[in-house]
């Protein structure tokens, strides 16, 4: 208005920022990436430390002498399992009752949207068996869960044996203040999901399960065990859960402390904690572990039964015993001892619940958000109404919707006309719709009016950039790894897109940063970091199965990656594709 201040001077600052727009964006992008990578290096990293000292985690000594008993149980379980082909429910009930638990069963069934080729199942039905050890002198208001997933392919019999032996040992102690639930689920995570839904009396994934006869109070923490061999060389701990959720960091630190105290070898992401921080090797290994964790968290898959517990506010971990070619091996006694002390400390969580109401959901050091902001554009001076942008938006969103709904809905039609199985049909339909979207720009022009054609692409790019920024902002708040990966790859190419200039180069860049290509690339990177590199053919196969798993997990567990990519990021990417091929 210019009454009290000088409008010319005011605009000077804005003009300065606009002039330096491109360098500022580039600087913030580079700073974001550099800061994120620097997280692996000291002084930004922090070693394992307990943030709540009052838990007194290293003060309890306990004996566990049930190693032989655990092995015996494991052998029996394996034998009965082989005989019956499914979970030997009657034997389990008998054994748990003889050990002194209250035993209940739950049956569940589910018809998957299409047959699952990795696990070879379609119509799944099974029984979960669980036993409750009641706290001798406390009211059953809270409980802990020790769960062993028993799938048809994973022979987890040693874990079952350890669970039964631990139950027998725990029954003899009088100092439990929480109930302990020993849960055996059939069909891996499907059984766990059925049990959790029935326990909390909700139904989010369409599972049909019988209601639970016995309950034990609000679950405070859970540990899942996967042990397939009599001796282990190391214990791997898995923390990432469904949709990138993480348990309380102190739980992981507790586990690490016990490993150190008990002399067990414990790994994170399959890698040991590096001891050598002075030279460059230590930080580089830390960076590898960091990237592995980012990739796993971004995928949003539950990497173990614990991933499903996190949704209900239950802190959970999965422990996997690994038998590799190291010299020093541990037997079940050592693992059992660490479990006993672990559960003793988890029990003490109760007293801290009164003031630890907030959970830390992020792991690792904090960061000021590495997502750079996309640049802003001035609206073109010609009057390009926003009404003309509606058409491309609607069409892109419609393609996204088709990508979400059609593959599963149309699988039967596809199998009738083509010689493929249902799972392959779904995946191929997915890819087909995705590729068809690339052909859109040649058709949308028929919907546009002549006057809007010339500089309308700027408005479209503006809207697309705002849309991308909004989505990335929301994703980063819930799943930082996913948001970071998407931002780091999509934002530069999105910003660079324009109809003029070297079109093939921009097209190639844009395709490389499209959601599907990024999935492919991250698969290769993940295997590379795990030191198991893939050839192209293997990679492609893995990619196809990853697509199928993604769709399945969305339908069975409620994983959000598939709808996010199909309904959110893919339409946004299509808008940029439209901008690129503007005529």
């Amino acid at each position: 208005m210019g009454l009290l201040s000088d409008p010319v001077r005011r605009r000077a600052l804005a003009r300065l920022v606009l002039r330096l727009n491109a360098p500022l964006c580039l600087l913030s992008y580079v700073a974001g990436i550099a800061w994120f990578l620097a997280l692996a290096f000291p002084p930004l990293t922090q070693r394992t430390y307990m943030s709540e000292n009052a838990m007194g985690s290293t003060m309890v000594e306990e004996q566990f002498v049930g190693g032989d008993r655990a092995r015996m149980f494991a052998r029996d379980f394996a034998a009965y399992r082989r005989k019956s082909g499914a979970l030997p429910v009657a034997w389990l009930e008998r054994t748990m009752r003889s050990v002194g638990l209250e035993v209940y069963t739950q049956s569940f069934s589910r018809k998957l949207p299409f047959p699952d080729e990795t696990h070879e199942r379609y119509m799944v039905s099974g029984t979960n068996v669980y036993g409750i050890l009641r706290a001798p002198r406390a009211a059953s208001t809270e409980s802990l869960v020790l769960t062993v997933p028993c799938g048809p392919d994973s022979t987890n019999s040693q874990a079952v044996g350890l669970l039964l032996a631990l139950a027998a040992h725990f029954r003899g102690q009088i100092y439990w203040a929480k109930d302990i639930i020993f849960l055996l689920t059939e069909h891996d995570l499907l059984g766990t999901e059925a049990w959790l839904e029935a326990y909390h009396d909700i139904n989010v994934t369409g599972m049909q399960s019988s209601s639970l006869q016995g309950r034990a109070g609000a679950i405070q923490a859970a540990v899942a065990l996967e042990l397939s061999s009599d001796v282990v060389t190391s214990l791997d701990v898995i923390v990432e859960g469904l949709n990138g959720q993480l348990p309380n960091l102190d739980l992981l630190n507790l586990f690490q402390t016990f490993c150190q105290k008990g002399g067990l070898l414990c790994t994170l992401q399959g890698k040991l904690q590096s001891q050598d921080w002075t030279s460059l090797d230590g930080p580089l290994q830390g960076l590898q572990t960091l990237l592995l964790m980012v990739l796993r968290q971004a995928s949003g898959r539950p990497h173990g039964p614990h991933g499903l517990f996190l949704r209900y506010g239950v802190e959970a971990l999965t422990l996997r015993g690994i038998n590799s070619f190291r010299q020093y091996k541990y037997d079940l006694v050592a693992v059992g001892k660490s479990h006993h002390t672990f559960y003793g400390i988890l029990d003490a969580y109760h007293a801290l619940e009164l003031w630890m109401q907030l959970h830390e959901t992020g792991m690792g050091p904090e960061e000021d958000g590495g997502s750079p902001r996309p640049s802003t554009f001035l609206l073109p001076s010609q009057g390009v109404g926003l009404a003309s942008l509606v058409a491309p938006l609607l069409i892109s969103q419609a393609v996204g919707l088709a990508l979400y709904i059609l593959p599963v809905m149309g699988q039967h039609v596809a199998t009738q006309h083509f010689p493929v199985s249902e799972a392959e049909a779904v995946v191929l339909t997915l890819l087909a719709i995705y590729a068809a979207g690339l052909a859109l720009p040649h058709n949308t022009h028929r919907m546009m009016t002549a006057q809007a054609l010339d500089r309308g692409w700027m408005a479209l790019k503006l809207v697309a950039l705002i849309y991308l920024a909004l989505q990335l902002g929301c994703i980063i708040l819930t799943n930082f790894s996913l948001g970071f990966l998407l931002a780091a790859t999509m934002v530069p190419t999105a910003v660079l897109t324009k109809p003029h200039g070297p079109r093939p180069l921009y097209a190639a860049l844009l395709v490389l940063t499209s959601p599907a290509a990024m999935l492919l690339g991250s698969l290769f990177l993940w295997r590379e970091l795990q030191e198991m590199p893939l050839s192209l053919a293997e990679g492609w196969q893995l990619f196809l199965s990853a697509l199928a798993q993604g769709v399945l997990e969305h339908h069975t567990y409620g994983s959000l990656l598939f709808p996010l990519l199909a309904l959110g990021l893919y339409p946004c990417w299509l808008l940029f594709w439209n901008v690129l091929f503007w005529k």
Partner: protein
Amino acid sequence: MAATYVLKHSATTLAAFLFLSFVSSAASHIEDQAEQFFRSGHTNNWAVLVCTSRFWFNYRHVANTLSVYRSVKRLGIPDSHIVLMLADDMACNPRNPKPATVFSHKNMELNVYGDDVEVDYRSYEVTVENFLRVLTGRIPPSTPRSKRLLSDDRSNILIYMTGHGGNGFLKFQDSEEITNIELADAFEQMWQKRRYNELLFIIDTCQGASMYERFYSPNIMALASSQVGEDSLSHQPDPAIGVHLMDRYTFYVLEFLEEINPASQTNMNDLFQVCPKSLCVSTPGHRTDLFKRDPKNVLITDFFGSVRKVEITTETMSLQQDSEIMESSYKEDQMDEELMEPLKYAEQLPVAQIIHQKPKLKDWHPPGGFILGLWALIIMVFFKTYGIKHMKFIF
């Protein structure tokens, strides 16, 4: 004949003389002992033992308090004169692997809970309000005798507190705090209501010395386990029970008290030496400026024990009224009538002292992000409004 008569007479007189002197010396011995009764000025002992924590991982605070309780009982103070405030959730805690016991030593030699402990304020009754009411005596009429501190102006009171504390406060059961000023005011109320003769205040918490900084009433001696800025540390973890069993300061105080019996002549200066920095890691502190007597004349049993001033004798003796005291009190009465000095209340808040205190040297920290951001915003707005061209009017 006369010589033997004289000799016999002298012998009897000598015997009589010796007998008389013996009797008189015996009488004066009894009188000395009777004089000793009034050496310290107190006639009864009370103890207020407070544990301000609850929950399983604060086991050591309860063990501290119960051990002091046992020592004090052993040295003679009966349960009727002890006000014990505990959360009392250790012995029957579901996590206790040895139910109905509280141990203070890791070999589990001594169960300080026993079966004859009398807890007066337990569980959620241990609040700041109840504690202050106990001290000041402002208690509802329905309170039972066991919950009252029925002290008079000839009582020596031992107050022992343990728990989690900070600089100037003590945490009560995770829900409230008592500040050092409140405590000092409570003691002043006790003084004005003539509820104590002498008071010994012992505190075993982190930064315990801050709790006795503000006392201003006479006849108070205070001991603390650590100075301001220091943490008091715990002594032994017990792997079978899984918690720390005792705090260091209290452990060494109890070791010291084990050598005390009701007849000991050990004085307070020895108690001040307990737990040096090499054993305790923190630096114990004490405060004696408000105390009228010299600490080396104060016996431990004056506070920790209830020495009953009873002597059994078959003699009769007459107590002389101490003429000096009579005259001085008579003179005081007369003086009061003449002078009528204006009475004034004790200084509740010595503002003059506070204002003229030297400011504490704090470490300089560079200004934080918020302050920098605020200043950056202010400067930006300033320049945006007035433009850069105005800068030359400033510089």
